[in-house]
Structure formats: structure tokens, C-alpha cells
């Protein structure tokens, strides 16, 4: 009898949907969402309007006449420096920087972390301490020495040079990440694999890798967003032909000559931000799992 449920406590406790607590909670969540989504809304709407409409109108209003012209221009014909082939050039540059940097840095760092946590050698603690120290040195200190190094080895201004820089700068934090993750895996598993005759690489590929998907996802997100969003290294170590997308975006948005084309700027910004955005949406769940993964049970 439902009436009983109301009077005698029995079975699941009835939940109040409209309690003061809930109203405050959802109210705050809604407000925060609104606050963060507003700029995005403005950007998307502006990028879909023509210039006349922008001059007239309210920035919050949806476009009266939807046009994809700004997107087309941002991608194919916007001028940055000497080139007038839009963001597409920077996009492909960024892809060519991102893919090798992310793969190489994550691979090396994961092997480092694995070796440091499982194959302790004489001085491995000191090695790790030095590596960690590297994470705290400000980038600015190293900019000029790296310019010289890249020039000496002939990679200055080339995509390969930037790949090298990203790989090296990702190393301390990624190694720390992997070392801590691998240290959290049961040590007896590693011992069992050694008794079973698996070597350094055998254990890495056949035992450790399959257990580490979450942490690889975390590392990938860190690297993809970090490298894609990088502006400083890109602007210093490349030249107009090899500029990554972020540098190109800056040049489009900060162009001084001509009229300010807000709609093109908005479209270009959205295009540049698309990659990290997609990564977050695709891997959000895995990311959370990886961050939370400390205790992995077999």
C-alpha cells in the first residue's frame, strides 16, 4: 500500500525532487553553464552572419540570414603574412607537428616511466629527480639556447625542429604521470611475468600496455591540447611557411590593415579550437577514468 510507505519507513527512502537543496544545486549548475556557453554562442552566431548584419545588430541575436562565407574565407583565403591560403595551411602544419610529437613523446615517456618504476637501476631515483626538476625550469630560460641548438643541427624553422622541442618539453610531466601509474600496478604481476620469461619489452607490450589504456588517454589529451594550443614555441621556432594554426590565427585576428572582419575572426577561432574540443568530447569518459585510476585491480 503506498499510503503505508508514506507513514512507516520501509523499503527505499522516498526522494523529494523539488527540495530546496535541489533547486539551489541545479540553479547554480544552470547559471554556470549559461555563463560559460554565452561566449561560444556569440562566436557561433557572429561567424554565421554577414558583415552588414554584424554592424547593425545585437551580438546575441541569431543571424537573420545564415551565411557560411566567413568559414570558407577563414579556411581557404584569409591572408596571414605573405600567404593568402587561409588557415588550411596552418591546420596541416599543426597536424604534422602534433601527430609525431604526441606519439613520440608519449611512447618515450611511457617506457621511461615503466623502466623507472619496475626496472630500478643504480641512480634511477636521481635520474627521476633531475627529470622532475626539468618540469620546474621556466620555458623562457631555454628559448634562446634552443634556438642555437636547432640552428646547429639544421632544424630551425622546420617542422621537425618543433616536433623535437615538443617531445622534450613533454617529457618530465609525462614521465611522472606514467611512472606513478605503473608504480600503482601490482608488483607481483611484474614478478610473475619475469618468472614466465618475459623480458623488458615483452612485459612492456604484453602486460603493461594492455593494462594502461586510461593513462595513455590522459597523456594523449594532455599532449594534444598542449601541442595544438602552443603559440610560443610555434612563433619562435618556425617561419611563415611552417607556422602552426595558432600563430596563423593570431595573425588573422590581429591584422592591422583593412576592416576588422569579426565573422571571419570568429570562424577562424572556432576552427582552431575544434581539435581539442573534439578530443574532449570523444574521450571525456576515458579521461575521467584515467584521472581516477590509481587502484587498478586485476
Amino acid at each position, binding site marked *: 500500500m503506498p499510503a503505508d510507505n508514506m507513514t512507516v519507513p520501509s523499503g527505499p527512502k522516498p526522494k523529494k525532487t523539488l527540495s530546496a537543496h535541489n533547486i539551489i544545486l541545479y540553479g547554480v549548475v544552470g547559471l554556470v553553464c549559461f555563463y560559460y556557453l554565452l561566449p561560444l554562442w556569440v562566436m557561433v552566431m557572429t561567424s554565421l552572419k554577414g558583415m552588414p548584419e554584424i554592424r547593425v545588430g545585437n551580438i546575441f541575436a541569431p543571424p537573420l540570414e545564415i551565411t557560411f562565407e566567413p568559414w570558407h574565407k577563414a579556411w581557404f583565403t584569409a591572408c596571414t603574412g605573405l600567404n593568402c591560403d587561409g588557415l588550411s595551411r596552418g591546420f596541416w602544419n599543426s597536424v604534422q607537428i602534433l601527430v609525431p610529437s604526441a606519439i613520440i613523446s608519449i611512447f618515450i615517456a611511457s617506457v621511461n616511466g615503466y623502466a623507472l618504476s619496475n626496472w630500478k637501476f643504480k641512480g634511477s631515483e636521481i635520474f627521476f629527480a633531475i627529470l622532475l626538476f626539468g618540469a620546474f625550469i621556466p620555458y623562457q630560460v631555454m628559448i634562446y639556447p634552443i634556438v642555437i641548438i636547432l640552428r646547429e643541427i639544421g632544424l630551425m624553422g622546420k617542422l621537425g625542429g618543433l616536433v623535437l622541442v615538443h617531445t622534450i618539453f613533454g617529457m618530465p610531466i609525462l614521465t611522472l604521470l606514467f611512472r606513478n601509474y605503473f608504480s600503482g600496478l*601490482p608488483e*607481483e*604481476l611484474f*614478478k*610473475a*611475468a*619475469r*618468472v*614466465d*620469461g*618475459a623480458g623488458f619489452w*615483452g612485459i612492456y607490450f*604484453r*602486460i603493461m600496455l*594492455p*593494462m594502461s589504456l586510461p593513462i595513455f588517454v590522459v597523456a594523449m589529451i594532455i599532449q594534444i591540447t598542449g601541442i595544438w594550443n602552443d603559440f610560443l614555441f610555434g612563433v619562435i621556432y618556425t617561419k611563415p611557411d611552417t607556422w602552426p594554426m595558432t600563430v596563423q590565427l593570431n595573425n588573422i585576428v590581429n591584422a592591422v590593415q583593412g576592416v576588422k572582419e569579426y565573422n571571419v575572426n570568429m570562424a577562424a577561432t572556432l576552427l582552431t579550437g575544434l581539435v581539442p574540443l573534439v578530443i574532449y568530447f570523444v574521450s571525456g569518459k576515458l579521461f575521467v577514468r584515467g584521472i581516477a585510476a590509481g587502484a587498478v585491480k*586485476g
Partner: protein
Amino acid sequence: MTNVSIKDLTLEFGSLRVLDQLNMEIAEGEFLVLLGASGCGKSTLLNCIAGLLDVTEGQIHIGGKNVTWEEPNDRGIGMVFQSYALYPQMTVEGNLSFGLKNARMPKDEIKRRVDRAAEILQIEPLMKRKPGALSGGQRQRVAIGRALVRDVDVFLFDEPLSNLDAKLRADLRVEIKRLHQRLNNTMIYVTHDQVEAMTLADRIAIMKGGVVQQLATPDEIYNRPTNRYVAGFIGSPEMNFFEGSLEGADAATFVTGGVQLPVGNYEFSTEKAANAAVSMGIRPESVVTGELSSKEPFTATVEVEIVEPMGADTLVWTKLAGVDFRFRMDGTASVAAGDKIAIGFDPSKGSMFDAKSELRL
């Protein structure tokens, strides 16, 4: 014939000396149990034998070969861990065959061995499952199977039953014993559980602080513990100890707290010394109560303080010669706190230790 022999083994972690000049000979087909409190170096010793730790000093020989510098997989050992350590992303079959594949064994030989192990351990229906879908007992069977397929002479177990509940532990204990009877290979088994040690072992090595205190058959360890630590460690409830001294012309009486215990028939393993300070240990099991107690060389009447019924028997706490004295009674006996009970025992069947050196007299 000796199968595993450990010579002057020392192991240090930095400045911490965990094993100190340890020597041990283990015969072929022997079931040796390493027993000791947690942190005494049992796992460390086992890891040294397995080759998972580099020794600081000394040698390890297996099957007559010096394997001190060999890799774990070249030593002819299989190992079973407390946490099972199954590879979570592989099926049971994959777990069993992983080591064999690493050794590049032909496919049909791998299949033959895996099938045999599965048959012995009765895990055939589980072969396609992953470890996550197995119960604790099943996981430990698979872990044993992983050692079994290697077809080695020496099995190493590191507290394999500690993560299981009491009933499963008793079941698997019997199975390990059965396995040993069937395969008859050398087994070195680490545990902190004395019941496992007593029931499984051909010989038990009792360790403390990285040093072997006594290495002997369960019977010998139980009845003739070599020092006071071993005497107190083995047996549950713990042995009753009295501090006193040997008196009389031929040191035939042990005097403690005004009570005289006749020890004329005690088998001394050292020279008798009168007036020396001695601890005397009496096992709770060797105390007789009721009518029969009057036939024992020593009798007394004691007052019951606490009764702990345990089903098959009942543990009774009293005081004798001013110290706590525990003994067992039949589970059907009706006793209550405050009762007066006649007890008797033969002090000559107890154990006596030098109070200073704590060694058996």
C-alpha cells in the same frame, strides 16, 4: 639428494640487512615451509631463490647448478603469489600459456601441457574466461596452473592462501598437499599461518629477523622447540611459561612462585645446571583435568577465571604460581568462571629454556 641449496645468503636493501648469512639445504621432493611473523624476510628469501632479487652475498644452487646469476625463467622454478598476479587482459588459457610461448615451445606441446594442468586443477570449464570473472579460489588455481605448466622441479609459493576465506583456504590447502603427493616435486612454501605450516610441511623453517631459528619436522618443532621464540610462536593457544630455577641435588625440581614441579624425567639436551634461571613452558594441550589428573606427576587445584568455548574444545584461563595459565578441556565439559578444577600435568614433557640465552636446555 639435495635440490635447492642456499649458501651464506645475505640480502640488504640499502643499509637494512634482511637476510643474514642464511644456509639451507632442501631435499628433492621435500615440502619445506618458511614460517615466521610478517616482515621477517620470508618473501625476500623466496624472491632470492626465484631470482627476482639480486643477492648481496652468497649463492643459490638449484638441481646441482649454481643459479645465483641466472634469470628467473632459467632457474627451473614456478612461482605462485599471494595476490594471484594473473594477467588481467588474458584469458585463463592465455595466462597458462604465456610462459610457454615466451619459451618458444611448439604449439602442440603447449596445448598438451595446458590441458594437463587444467585437468589436474579442474579448471577446464574456465579456460576461456578472464581472471576478472573468476572467484578467488579459481584464480588461485589458475595461478598454481601457471606454475604447473612450466613442468619445473621446484615450486615456490608466497602465502598463496592468505587472500582466501577460511573455508576455501582449508580446501585449497588439502589440494596443494594432494598436488605435492601426485607430482612429488620440491615445494617451498611461505606462510605466516602455523596451521598451514604444520599440516603441509615435511620440514618447517621458522624465521625471525632474517635468521632461521629452527629447521625441523613439524613434530620436532612442536614438541622440542629449540628456543623460547619458537616455543611461543608455534601452538595456539600459546604455551604457558613460568620463570624460575632448577633446584635440588640433581636439578630434579623446577621452582617457580612457591610451586615445585618435578622434572626428574626431563630429557636435557645440555648439561644440567642447578640454581640456574630457567623458563619452563607447558602446552595448554598437555594439561589433564578431572579424575585422571591425579595420576600426573604434578597436580594442583585452580580457580577458573575465564572460559572460552571453541566448539570442539574449551579454553580455560586460570592462575598457577601467580601467572596466567591456560589449558584445554573437552568441549562438552561444563565449566564456569569461579569453579575450582583439579588439574595435572607432567613437567618433564614440557620445554625448558635458559632464561638468559633462551635456548633449550
